[in-house]
């Protein structure tokens, strides 16, 4: 009853073309964003550091992969490596030019990832589906090899790992061991909110329609005058940009240091599972998928003990694997549009409630 567009007449096409034409949706978004920001007041390091920061970072990576796989229909198994390109670029940039604002380098490292993404996206003109996935897999292994075998990338550290240096922003420490969870959370949140807004703008406009057209029926898209290669490469570029920024944040604003294994094929699958469960071709789905995959083990780990049920770390891991596996099978077979679609259905029901139609 309360959620419906009744009485909200769209007087022009600009407001109808808006991303959230319904007022309740817009209010909801504002409330959620404000609530997210107010979490810093909770003074809860565990909440921010172990849950919110990684959740947001993986959401950004999931959005990146979703732009490519969900919106453009190009399956990629190289997400982990593209995240790695972002992380290593950021590390090189900030150690070569320590004076430049670290936030700028985090964003710029996205461009490096975009560039690499475009190069490995080139075969996508000729090959599709399974074979393209294999090509991105090659990218994954090649880049991983670079992260291990090119010591210049990690500044010849004996640990063979990125060691995040301390950097300040307006006198506040934002990276390195002395940066507080609150500061890092605020930066991650702001970047993810802004980049989600941008992704939403892109997919709702001309470029988003070109991507989806290529995904749904590439021959018809070509006949609309959409050139396949530039369109696919743009998807690779934007997608890898998102993954690159996510990778840089993962190391600089969460881990504080990382070896090449962080960017392994496992990470690629991890993000892929998020968008399958959350919903292919949905930004909301990227959030839901990341939340589910990321929060599930944490909930399993900490909720049962509250009720006096002891669980082993190993058990948690097993249950997580089984649940995630079952969910993937479920969504692939029953609802390819994932949690996001279930949410839409619920909303539709709410709109007409209490009437069945």
């Amino acid at each position, binding site marked *: 009853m309360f959620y419906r567009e009744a009485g909200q007449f769209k007087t022009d*096409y600009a407001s109808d*073309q808006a991303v959230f034409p319904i007022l309740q949706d817009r209010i909801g978004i504002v409330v959620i964003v404000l609530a997210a920001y107010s979490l810093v007041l909770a003074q809860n390091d565990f909440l921010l550091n172990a849950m919110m920061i990684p959740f947001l970072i993986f959401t950004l990576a999931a959005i990146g992969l979703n732009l490519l796989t969900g919106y453009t229909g190009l399956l990629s198994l190289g997400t982990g490596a593209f995240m790695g390109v972002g992380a290593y670029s950021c590390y090189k940039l900030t150690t070569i030019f320590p004076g430049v604002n670290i936030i700028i380098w985090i964003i710029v490292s996205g461009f490096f990832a975009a560039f690499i993404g475009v190069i490995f996206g080139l075969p996508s003109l000729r090959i599709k589906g399974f074979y393209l996935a294999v090509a991105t897999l090659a990218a994954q292994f090649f880049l991983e090899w670079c992260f291990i075998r090119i010591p210049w990338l990690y500044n010849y550290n004996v640990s063979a790992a990125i060691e995040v240096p301390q950097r300040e922003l307006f006198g506040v420490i934002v990276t390195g061991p002395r940066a507080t969870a609150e500061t890092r959370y605020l930066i991650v949140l702001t970047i993810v909110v802004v980049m989600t807004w941008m992704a939403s703008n892109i997919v709702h406009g001309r470029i988003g329609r070109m991507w989806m057209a290529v995904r749904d029926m590439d021959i018809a898209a070509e*006949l*609309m005058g959409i050139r396949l290669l530039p369109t696919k490469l*743009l998807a690779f570029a*934007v997608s890898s940009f998102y993954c690159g920024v996510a990778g840089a944040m993962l190391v600089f604003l969460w881990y504080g240091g990382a070896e090449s294994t962080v960017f392994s094929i496992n990470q690629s699958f991890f993000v892929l599972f998020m968008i399958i469960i959350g919903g292919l071709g949905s930004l909301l789905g990227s959030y839901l998928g990341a939340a589910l995959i990321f929060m599930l083990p944490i909930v399993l780990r900490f909720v049962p003990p509250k009720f006096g049920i002891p669980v082993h770390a190993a058990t948690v891991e097993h249950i997580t694997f089984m649940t995630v596996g079952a969910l993937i099978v479920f969504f692939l077979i029953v609802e390819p549009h994932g949690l996001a679609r279930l949410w839409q259905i619920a909303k539709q029901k709410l709109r007409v409630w209490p009437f069945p139609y």
Partner: protein
Amino acid sequence: MRAPTGSHIAAGEVLLAVENVSLSFGGVHAIRDVSFDIRKGEIRAIIGPNGAGKTSMLNVINGFYTPQAGQITFKGQTRSKMRPFEAARGGIARTFQNVALFRGMTALDNIMAGRTLRMHRGLFWQIFRYGPAMTEEVEHRLRAEEIIDFLHIQHIRKIQVGRLPYGLQKRVELGRALAMEPDLLLLDEPMAGMNLEEKEDMSRFVLDVNQHFGTTIALIEHDMGVVMDLSDRVVVLDYGQKIADGSPDEVKSNKTVIDAYLGVAH
């Protein structure tokens, strides 16, 4: 909808000419040495029994197939093959025998996708959406709405086309082609699988598009009644060869054509 622009060819002159085109797939000769032309402003029907090569001919015209021999002259430019992108740029739009809509997108988005070539704001403006990108979006939304009104599909504009019944899908596909404001519209069996009422509606739309907007139309259709009513000239293909070409009445009384349709042995 605006009348098509950008063409210096006057009504009645040759808009597209196909000369001595041959196309084969391995051993299958889909088209053998076929020549015909389409004049600006007319409805040109292409008919023939199943497997005659009609769809293949459209695929040659908009560049999906490369003919082994022959040439295509479009708007005065002669080439041995078209490229899909060039064809779209040049003002050729197309619907498919088996609907080829973007199934995951709404009817409105499908039609908006038809306007891609006419929209120019790049990634930079799209990222911010508000401002120039939105101005452009609204301007083209108005065009899309005109097409939606014209085809009477207001009620389904926000529905994913994959969920629409077949007849409506065909209509949305026509809308998407119209959104390109083409000079030449290729329709591959637009009425196949429709009931009588839907066929009548679709015939009306085809005629209206031709008369009000002056769009030249090449129409493949099996329903002879529709062909006779709509078309100005008819070309008949059989086993990849042209067996007749002329006004509907001439073609109807042509002995070879009657034999081809009745399946007389060659």
